[in-house]
């Protein structure tokens, strides 16, 4: 159990690092496509690390499978949303941008 005591925090911090990188990208990148790229890719890697940490923390196969399913659903939702938003941004049809 002592090894997981080190592995879980390491995974969590790695996840948080990717989340921070993704958020930084969302704030600093110049257009919709690159922002979506940062948000959906980096954040989902971050979520993957956090999910891995959670699975190890609970330490049961059932919990791990459920957490993996949650991650997969998040990936699907993020992928679809990113595609839709990027396509919408490209056509320039959205007139009500957030001020």
């Amino acid at each position, binding site marked *: 159990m002592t090894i997981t005591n080190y592995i879980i925090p390491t995974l969590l911090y790695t996840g948080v690092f990717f989340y921070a990188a993704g958020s930084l990208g969302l704030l600093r990148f110049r257009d919709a496509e690159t922002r979506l790229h940062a948000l959906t890719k980096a954040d989902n890697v971050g979520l993957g690390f956090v999910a891995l940490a959670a699975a190890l923390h609970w330490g049961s196969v059932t919990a791990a499978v459920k957490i993996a399913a949650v991650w997969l659903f998040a990936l*699907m939702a993020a992928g*679809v949303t990113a*595609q*839709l938003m990027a*396509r*919408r941004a*490209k*056509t320039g*049809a959205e007139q*009500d941008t*957030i*001020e």
Partner: protein
Amino acid sequence: MTLAFDLILCLMIIGTAASALLMRNALAAIVFFIVFGNLLGLAWLAMDAVNVAMAEIAIGAGVTGVLLILARQRLMALGDDLVCDEMPGWLRAGALVACAGFAALVGAAVLSVAPSDDLGGPIAALMPSLGIENPVTGVLLAFRAYDTLLETFVLLGALVAVWSLAPGTAWPHPPATLALTEREGHGVAAAFGRLLLPLALVMAAYLVWTGSDLPGGAFQAGTVLAGGLIIAVIGGAVLWPRGDNRLLRVALVLGPAVFLTIGLAGIALGRFLFYPPGFEKALIVAIEYSLALSIGVTLALQLAGPPVTPDHKG
């Protein structure tokens, strides 16, 4: 949960609530409202109220968020520019006083409940007789089943009210489609809708089943089903049914009807909503499955709005 986590969560909840109220842009305000609902769900989770957390995130943030976005879209389609007029000072002050008074009243009411008024003990003692382990389901479907029965009829009544807003010529045509009209996004949304609807069905069935012993239940499952239906409609994988569709009507009424029938049958055995010993779990699960279907279809159709005449777009 640590104090630091609780404090940060509280600050984020208040911050997102304030942003939702103060945003001039309606869409931004709705986005903050959805984030607020999710954070509130986290707060319930931190207090170990998992059932409430699921309901808050699914209904409070999810369904209500979609409802607000659709309402904004429809208002814009009607030519409303969604800008608030400057309010007179007395109205602002009055609203502030009224809201502060209400908040103080709610706070006093919550604080007046003594920790010794805990209902967990008596309910835990009664749970073994039901054959299920989730006390929330026990309260909703057995100890306070009357309230839940009325709630399901309120939900049905709300849909009847939405439908009655339609002009006479629109009935019984289906509601306006939500399908994406732009060619660019259509394929992605269609594929997602086709993938998600069966998954939502499985997830809803699982949530009802697991709701007997663990957090979950008919309302959460119904919301998941409604979400799957909405996504499928947006993708064009499913079309809204006509109002006179027989299967649709069965789906809408099934939950309340099964609940009421079992409740009335209880009169023969003693009193209204009495479950015969040994059949509690079977009856509760039967009610919950039929309720989940009805809640899911009702919520989805409430979001869809009233029927429209076929030539009408949007």
